[in-house]
């Protein structure tokens, strides 16, 4: 397009009067300014992202520019079926499954001659044996295709799942910073103050078990199967949360840390006392447990929102699928007149789409981009702590 415009202008120049020359100069000026703007602020990029930090092997191709994020491809190859047999994540099984699925996933979604601008991969935190598969595939591909690789923190990915489900964040993110993010999953429970893209402060985290883990273990105590979260919250729907008076550990601790181990043990005590439990008891225990969890999470989140004067609240992580948690936070945020964002169900669990979006904002900030020989030293960081106190 550029060439045509220049030729057209040359033709104009030859035949122009002074007036048309003036118009021409204005047009050229506008054209140059606009091109500069497009180059600097509205770069179109195609990013291929891989995620294999735990249960899921996933691939996404994202087409990103200033105010639009479009997923061209998005596939999750879940391993939950396999893990159900074992009641949890078995690392060796997980690694073997990633090894079996990652190449077919790549070849089904991208042709070898196809070009992407960036590759992205989760390098941590997660299970080392699972991470290794995604990291190895991504860095090999990056090296072979001579394409830069963005190393992405899995927790940052969860935060950016909100950008996938809320266009408003893509267009006007700065309006909502600082934002308070509650990240809740099988391995994490963290309250993070997000001051801007890539700028985080950890306000508090669990001192023992993560929320998702507590759901899983309560499901195990009640013999309900794996994964525990969806089953417990489904049973809670039919239960009465006022039947069992469970504790709210650390709710008044004066900081933003959490504790869920004692709550799990309180459920155990309740069951020991009852000895025989029927279906209705199980529903009531689930309802009482979920109510206690939501109480603690919402209470601490709203306290932090108040103290740090945030402009929005975000929810992220696998437990963001929990309806009672979403509804309670929504309600409290509305009372305080704060916008509340949460990811759609398909992006609350582990996926590669959130990794591609986090990669996009890392690229804009020129962070964690690796290319050339440096690619060879990219390795999984199973304990990568992105958020600092």
């Amino acid at each position, binding site marked *: 397009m550029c060439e045509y415009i220049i030729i057209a202008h040359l033709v104009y120049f030859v035949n122009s009067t002074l007036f048309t020359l003036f118009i021409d100069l204005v047009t050229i000026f506008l054209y140059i300014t606009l091109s500069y703007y497009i180059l600097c602020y509205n770069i179109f990029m195609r990013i291929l992202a891989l995620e294999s930090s735990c249960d899921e092997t996933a691939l996404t191709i994202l087409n990103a520019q200033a105010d639009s994020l479009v997923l061209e491809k998005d596939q999750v190859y879940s391993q939950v079926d396999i893990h159900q047999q074992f009641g949890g994540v*078995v690392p060796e099984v997980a690694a073997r499954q990633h090894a079996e699925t990652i190449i077919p996933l790549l070849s089904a979604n991208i042709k070898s001659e196809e070009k992407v601008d960036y590759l992205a991969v989760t390098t941590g935190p997660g299970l080392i044996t699972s991470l290794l598969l995604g990291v190895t595939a991504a860095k090999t591909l990056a090296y072979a295709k001579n394409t830069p690789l963005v190393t992405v923190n899995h927790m940052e990915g969860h935060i950016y799942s909100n950008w996938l489900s809320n266009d408003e964040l893509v267009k006007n993110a700065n309006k909502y910073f600082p934002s308070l993010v509650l990240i809740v999953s099988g*391995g994490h429970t963290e309250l993070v103050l997000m001051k801007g893209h890539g700028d985080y402060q950890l306000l508090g985290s669990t001192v023992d078990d993560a929320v998702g883990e507590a759901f899983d273990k309560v499901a*195990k105590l009640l013999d309900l199967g794996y994964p525990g979260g969806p089953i417990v919250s489904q049973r809670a729907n039919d239960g009465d949360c006022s039947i069992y008076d469970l504790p709210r550990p650390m709710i008044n601790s004066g900081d933003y840390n959490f504790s869920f181990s004692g709550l799990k043990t309180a459920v155990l005590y309740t069951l020991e006392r009852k000895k025989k439990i029927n279906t209705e008891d199980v529903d009531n225990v689930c309802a009482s447990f979920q109510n206690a969890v939501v109480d603690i999470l919402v209470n601490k989140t709203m306290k932090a929102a108040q103290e740090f004067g945030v402009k929005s609240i975000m929810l992220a992580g696998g437990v963001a699928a929990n309806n009672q948690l979403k509804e309670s936070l929504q309600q409290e945020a509305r009372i305080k007149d704060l916008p509340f964002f949460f990811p759609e169900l398909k992006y609350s669990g582990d996926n590669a789409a959130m990794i591609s979006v986090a990669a996009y904002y890392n690229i804009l900030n020129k962070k964690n981009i690796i290319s050339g020989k440096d690619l060879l030293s990219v390795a999984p960081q199973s304990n990568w702590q992105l958020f600092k106190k």
Partner: protein
Amino acid sequence: MQEFVTNNIKETNKVANDLATSLESGQLIALSGNLGAGKTVFVKALAVGLGISETITSPTFVLMKSYPVNYKQIKQLIHVDCYRLDASEDLADIGLQDFLDDPQTLVVIEWADKLDNLPKNNLINVKMEFLGQDKRKIVISSKLVG
């Protein structure tokens, strides 16, 4: 073999603290007991006894966490949780063998009863049992060599 019955968390913590003072590097502590028996509480108290200032959190999801230590010859604590592992699982798959072979590392494994291939030497078994409310039975037995 030592057997303790503790009536509250404070007493449980004391048993763990006392064990910590007698520990040497290169040892392996195998913890067993059902959900809610107090295994993580025990490891937390053990860590306090070893002078670890970081908060010990459950390694259930990530399987293994490491903490720096400066106690006698012990330079690091590796906290493993086999809750999600299959009984026949080989620990080599999570890279544990390197730590077991390291003389400056103390390894603590929760749900160790799920493993059938634990080393026989330098092994301290801690069995915890829930007796009601905060009451626990703790049995410590060790096979130490050298």
